[in-house]
């Protein structure tokens, strides 16, 4: 095929502007962050001798361990909640949406095209000491004192993030559900499976790619969330991104901040790869 080379060449020419942009503006800066994490900050001076001190500090200092551990646990809980809550909705839209499917999908995304900051802040209004929940419950005479366990802790962060990332979980699951061949479900029905068995044995396994995609799309970015823990987390809900920001800002220790950023990215990367491999293995065993 003489065409292939020409086609390949044209493809490379076309893809090179966006590729160059990403290499220069993303890959190179990330490489520089790695380099910086191997240097150290001497008050105002940057010491350019290679050292692993930042990584040693980032992994041994209890505060950083706590924050990274908490970030991963909070993100993990957020991911599980978001995906489990999203599945029935994706299922509902995919299976029973009919002609209203595009409208329902649009309705799901509309709340998320509003200011992210204000949306997060509104949760503070809902959960606050004088907030909507406490106000209504006290107005109805159900409680006498405002509930305090709903704001400024990890619960509030989980709830708010589960809300903020809902469409990112719904859409991939929805896509995988619509791809399921209806004849498979009919075959299962003909072979005597009831609705529940059909769901467990056919629908759920075939929608797993969507569930896995949803899990990754929610888990990876939420580990690095800054706004929600800062606004709703109190001191018990702060996460690693808040510490990274402090190191680049007030603490003026960019090398340590870089090491923390790299460490969290690597940790998240390993967990994600582990998750994908595990789910593949489980999928194979079942088959």
């Amino acid at each position, binding site marked *: 095929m003489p065409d292939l080379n020409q*086609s390949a060449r044209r*493809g490379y020419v076309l893809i090179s502007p*966006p590729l160059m*942009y990403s290499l220069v503006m993303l890959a190179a800066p990330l490489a520089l962050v790695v380099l910086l994490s191997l240097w150290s900050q001497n008050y105002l001076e940057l010491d350019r001798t290679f050292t692993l001190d930042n990584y040693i500090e980032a992994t041994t200092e209890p505060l950083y361990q706590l924050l990274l551990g908490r970030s991963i646990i909070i993100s993990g809980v957020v991911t599980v909640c978001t995906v489990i809550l999203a599945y029935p909705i994706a299922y509902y839209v995919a299976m029973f949406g009919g002609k209203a499917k595009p409208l329902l999908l649009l309705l799901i995304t509309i709340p998320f095209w509003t200011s992210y900051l204000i949306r997060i*802040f509104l949760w503070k209004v809902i959960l606050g000491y004088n907030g909507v929940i406490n106000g209504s419950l006290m107005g109805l005479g159900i409680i006498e004192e405002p509930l305090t366990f709903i704001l400024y802790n990890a619960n509030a962060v989980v709830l708010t993030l589960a809300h903020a990332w809902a469409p990112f979980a719904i859409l991939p699951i929805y896509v995988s559900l619509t791809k399921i061949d209806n004849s498979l479900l009919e075959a299962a029905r003909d072979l005597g499976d009831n609705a529940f068995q059909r769901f467990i044995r056919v629908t759920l396994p075939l929608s797993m790619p969507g569930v896995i995609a949803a899990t990754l799309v929610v888990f990876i970015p939420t580990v690095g969330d800054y706004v929600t823990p800062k606004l709703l987390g109190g001191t018990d809900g702060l996460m690693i991104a808040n510490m990274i920001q402090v190191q680049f800002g007030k603490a003026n220790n960019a090398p340590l901040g870089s090491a923390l*950023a790299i460490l969290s990215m690597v940790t998240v990367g390993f967990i994600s790869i582990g998750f994908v491999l595990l789910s593949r293995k489980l999928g194979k065993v079942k088959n």
Partner: protein
Amino acid sequence: MQKASKFLLLYAVFYFLFLYAPIFLLPIFAFNDSAIISLPLSGITFDWFFLLWETEALHEALYNSVLIASIAAILSTILGIFAARAASRYSFPGKKGITGFLLLPIVLPEIIIGVALLVVMVQLGLSLSAWTVIIGHVLICTPFAIVIMSSAFKSFDVSLEEASQDLGVGKIGTFFRVILPMVTPGLISSFLIAFTISLDEFIIAFFLTGTDVTLPVYIWGQLRFPARLPSVMALGFLMVTLSLILLLIAEYFRRRSVKYTINESTLMAKNEETVF
């Protein structure tokens, strides 16, 4: 088509209430005649909107944000066209890996992008400005532009391109006179989505903004002052309304792009039927 069980339907209703709960509160507190954001409500006022009209710093932030979002949306749509055209029209070794790398910012925490660009600027001794924010926003908007433009190019009929070239129009002429007009709806949709993402982005702007404060960075500053909150609610209400309008326009053009190309191809199919 089966009927959904009552339980599932009920669940869907509650889920939608959960999704919309914060948004419903916005107009309530934007028009509430009280300086404190809490229940019970006291009365209706338009004061908070007038206050917005008089706040100079807000206007400046809005101007910066619109400027940044426009440039970022144009640049990312252009990059998206290149990548989408390459991916949908040509095959070359490493295509999957390269597109995967270009789409990476979708899953990368935004704080990492902010930190990485900040490190570069500081090390090169460059000062932060609207341009540094634009650089970051182009990175996160391009993946969305690529996805939208890819679907636009995929529904585009290659034979039209071949016809144009057979009629003696060059490659560049064909691109501007045939391909681009056909994918215009996708183009508009990509621009609007990228514009909305950039307009709303906080973390990257927070790290890279310098003195050219963007709207979200301005709002972030206001959230610390309880007295400013009612006007933040009013601002939020205006922004919701605006982004809804933009989203509906984007959706309209996206649908039209799909419908348009489908009509074209069905028309061709019909023509073929009559010819043969």
